[in-house]
């Protein structure tokens, strides 16, 4: 890649990112002329730069976007959210083109079509809201919905059950968008939770790249589901991703037709997989042959015939057509063909079959425009198959970030090495002493000492720097939310502003990772169940736009994240009832539970399951999972809500996993570390205030009885506790909601250390959380109070 092209890519990526941000901002403040101007300039520059290199599709897209923005600026076109949608799509397409340029030096040919489509959409007014995209509506006059063959195969089994139970059957095809993982979606989970899931099939959307080049963050599967549920239920289930699914009821007649077609023996290559369907007709000679056969059947049916001849002709045309369908992999047409044949038989007329032939071009080709000649039928399918067979450029990188991805283990290794360096460094003062006393060279000793000071400073900075490597701003996880909130609120028909504060609060990477899933879940809850639809908000005297506020801040050695919405709040009464129905609480609790406590029931495992779709949570993964995944990294979550006014969720997490704060104490001349979070206070108690109750020492501190434990006794050290005149030194600690006093000899200091678990034979020792290496090379055993007491 030439330096010039590299520079172009860097700038173009920045333009694309800024444009995307600008569009989202402009949606909030459509009247902001300055913003619009800036946006226009960005797009204009992008177009000009792309022109320098002759990247035609990119020029086309940016040119169209520039035109539209200009029209918006001049006034004739209003910037509504539909237009923003299309513009965002253009931005996404531009980003993909840049990926392609980065990988291959040029824009992949298939983008030309995409660019043209986007340019057309930009020039034309977007579809009015509520209009279904063409691929979702079933083609007019279609004799049967496009239900894949594998479903046809199992339909007869499902049919009896469905008919006897009076249950609807629905087919769903779900193709998650490639970037969906970044929105925190797990399509597999959504599929798994689909109501009435009876059968499913999965296949790659595009051929897999070589495993070494696989991008694990790109979704590449299409799911097909058969569900014993109504289309409405499924629409509700897939409501967050409605654009990515096709939902079709399986009509009762299709079930019957499929069983009628069962007796017909399969002729050529009957077991075609749905994914294989498109590949059969790529050979042009085959295409022509298929067209000829179709024309011949039509000719046969058009011939004048006597009533005696007719059944034979119909049957033979029927057999030929059936074989043709199977040979071309269009097995989805079999059911409608069987139906047409039945009807033709019953009426002793070739009309139903001719009608079926006519509908073939319209129906089975789907995308082909009406009025195509019969020979157009095979060609209709070759276009999509050519895109799906396109070999995907292999290396997909994040959009132009110059961030180095390093496994955490490598950073940890560096941390260890710094620790060893500290120990090595501490040998220098000893060497200096020897230089002076044994070799009689005070100058050399001085030199060594001054070198020691230099190395000491560098090591300190290294240690600090490596700790920082692990720290990331919370913004890295928050940045995906504006788009998520925008897309989701649109899907749900709500108006929501997302306000974020404190994005640059830094926390350990591990914590950032652990935050993502819970936050997505909480946001979804707020959007779906918290924020009311605009009309309802106006009725209850609120502004039609809801607000969700995410506020991150540092509080001591913890990070605090507050998610607050001004929605309808949680109905404690409803929660109470639900919990009772689910047998999570007893009847007395149902009566006695305070409102505050009732709300906390949403954290109980089993409270939120997929049945409670319209209640407090909704996607099968409940607040209990949120709580569990936070607790795994030492976090907590609390929730408060005022009915009608909103809900506030407070997350609190440790800033860092690697570094913990311990208080260094001395017992029997040996240093020990005690986790600082367990320590409540330190006091010196006169001996006279130590009482003995049933052979146990206790003391009374602010009218609270505190049991005393001698650390040396607990650890089995052979040492008498120091009992000085001024009394004994006590560390008041908290241990699983109890308070206890630990008797120690001396306190030294609070330290930030990296606690390593003990290994080898030492791992058997109980009462230790691990050990830390101190700056001077001392090993500091860190106590585990829960085990010890």
């Amino acid at each position, binding site marked *: 890649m030439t330096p010039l092209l590299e520079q172009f890519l860097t700038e173009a990526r920045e333009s694309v990112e800024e444009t995307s941000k600008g569009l989202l901002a402009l949606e909030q403040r459509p009247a902001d002329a300055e913003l619009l101007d800036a946006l226009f300039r960005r797009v204009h520059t992008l177009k000009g730069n792309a022109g320098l290199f002759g990247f035609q599709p990119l020029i086309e897209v940016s040119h169209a976007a520039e035109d539209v923005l200009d029209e918006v600026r001049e006034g004739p076109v209003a910037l509504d959210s539909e237009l923003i949608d299309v513009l965002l799509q253009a931005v996404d397409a531009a980003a993909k083109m840049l990926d392609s340029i980065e990988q291959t030096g040029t824009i992949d040919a298939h983008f030309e079509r995409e660019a043209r489509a986007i340019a057309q959409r930009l020039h034309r007014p977007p579809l009015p809201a509520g209009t279904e995209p063409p691929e979702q509506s079933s083609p007019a006059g279609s004799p049967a919905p496009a239900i894949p063959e*594998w479903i046809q195969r199992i339909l007869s089994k499902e049919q009896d059950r469905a008919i006897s139970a009076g249950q609807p059957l629905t087919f769903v095809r779900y193709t*998650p968008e490639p970037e969906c*993982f970044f929105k925190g979606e*797990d*399509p*597999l*989970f959504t599929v*798994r939770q689909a109501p009435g*899931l009876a*059968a*499913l*099939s*999965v*296949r*790659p959307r595009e051929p*897999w*790249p070589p*495993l*070494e080049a*696989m991008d*694990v*963050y790109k*979704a*590449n*599967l299409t799911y097909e589901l058969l569900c014993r549920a109504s289309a409405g239920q499924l629409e509700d289930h897939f409501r967050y991703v409605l654009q990515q699914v096709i939902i079709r009821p399986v009509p009762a007649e299709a079930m019957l037709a499929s069983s009628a077609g069962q007796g017909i023996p399969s002729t050529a290559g009957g*077991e*075609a*997989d749905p*994914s*294989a369907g498109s*590949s059969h007709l790529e050979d042009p000679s085959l295409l022509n042959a298929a067209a000829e056969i179709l024309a011949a059947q039509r000719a046969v049916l058009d011939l004048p015939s006597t009533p005696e001849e007719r059944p034979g002709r119909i049957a033979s045309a029927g057999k030929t057509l059936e074989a043709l369908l199977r040979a071309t992999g269009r097995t989805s047409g079999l059911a409608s063909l069987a139906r047409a044949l039945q009807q033709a038989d019953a009426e002793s007329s070739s009309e139903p079959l001719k009608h079926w032939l006519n509908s073939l071009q319209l129906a089975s080709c789907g995308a082909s425009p009406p009025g195509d000649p019969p020979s157009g039928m095979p060609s209709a399918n070759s276009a999509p198959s050519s895109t799906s067979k396109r070999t995907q450029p292999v290396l997909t990188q994040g959009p132009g970030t110059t961030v180095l991805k390093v496994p955490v283990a490598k950073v940890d290794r560096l941390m260890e090495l710094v620790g060893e360096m500290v120990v090595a460094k501490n040998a220098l003062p000893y060497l200096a002493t020897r230089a002076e006393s044994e070799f009689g060279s005070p100058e050399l000793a001085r030199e060594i000492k001054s070198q020691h000071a230099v190395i000491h400073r560098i090591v300190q900075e290294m240690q600090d720097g490596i700790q920082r490597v692990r720290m990331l701003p919370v913004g890295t996880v928050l940045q995906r939310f504006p788009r998520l909130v925008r897309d989701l609120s649109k899907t749900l028909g709500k108006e929501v502003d997302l306000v974020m504060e404190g994005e640059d609060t830094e926390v350990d990477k591990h914590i950032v*990772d652990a935050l993502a*899933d819970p936050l997505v879940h909480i946001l979804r809850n707020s959007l779906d169940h918290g924020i009311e639809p605009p009309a309802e908000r106006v009725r209850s005297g609120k502004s039609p736009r809801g607000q969700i506020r995410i506020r991150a801040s540092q509080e001591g050695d913890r990070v605090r994240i507050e998610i607050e919405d001004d929605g309808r709040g949680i109905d404690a009464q409803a929660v109470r009832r639900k919990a009772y129905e689910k047998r999570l609480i007893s009847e007395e609790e149902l009566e006695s539970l305070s409102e505050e406590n009732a709300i906390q029931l949403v954290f109980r495992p089993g409270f939120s399951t997929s049945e409670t779709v319209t209640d407090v949570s909704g996607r099968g993964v409940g607040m209990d*999972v949120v709580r569990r995944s936070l607790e795994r990294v030492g976090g907590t979550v609390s929730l408060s809500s005022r009915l009608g006014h909103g809900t506030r969720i407070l997350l609190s997490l440790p800033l860092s996993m690697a570094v913990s704060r311990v208080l260094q104490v001395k017992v029997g001349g040996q240093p020990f570390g005690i986790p600082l979070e367990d320590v409540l206070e330190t006091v010196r108690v006169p001996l006279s205030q130590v009482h003995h109750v049933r052979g146990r020492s206790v003391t009374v501190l602010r009218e609270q009885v505190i049991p005393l434990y001698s650390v040396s006794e607990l650890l089995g050290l052979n040492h008498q506790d120091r009992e000085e005149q001024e009394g004994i030194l006590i560390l008041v600690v908290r241990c699983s909601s109890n308070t206890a006093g630990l008797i120690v000899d001396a306190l030294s200091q609070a330290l930030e250390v990296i606690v390593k678990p003990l290994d080898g034979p030492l791992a058997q020792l109980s009462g230790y959380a691990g050990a830390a290496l101190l700056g001077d090379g001392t090993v500091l055993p860190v106590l585990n109070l829960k085990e010890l007491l």
Partner: protein
Amino acid sequence: MSVAWDSERLSLSGHCTVEEAETVLTWILQHPQGEIDLSALEHMHMSIFQVLLAAGASQVRLPEDPFWQQLWGSIVTAMESDDRENRTRSG
């Protein structure tokens, strides 16, 4: 710990999230013939499932949940027909 491995076997258990997909991919790249043990798995994120699928992992111990059995059944067929398709095309 929801992902554990040695040189012969990768075990996924409990809920495996998108953060673990890269680990799984790395392990499979290093151990193409290794065994994948899902018997204690409750759920894996689609990204992990994709990795197993793309790798064509064959030595897999499935969880008892019929969902996984059915899902796995449907992939194996899909892959076989892919193979068939490839063979027809190259032949």
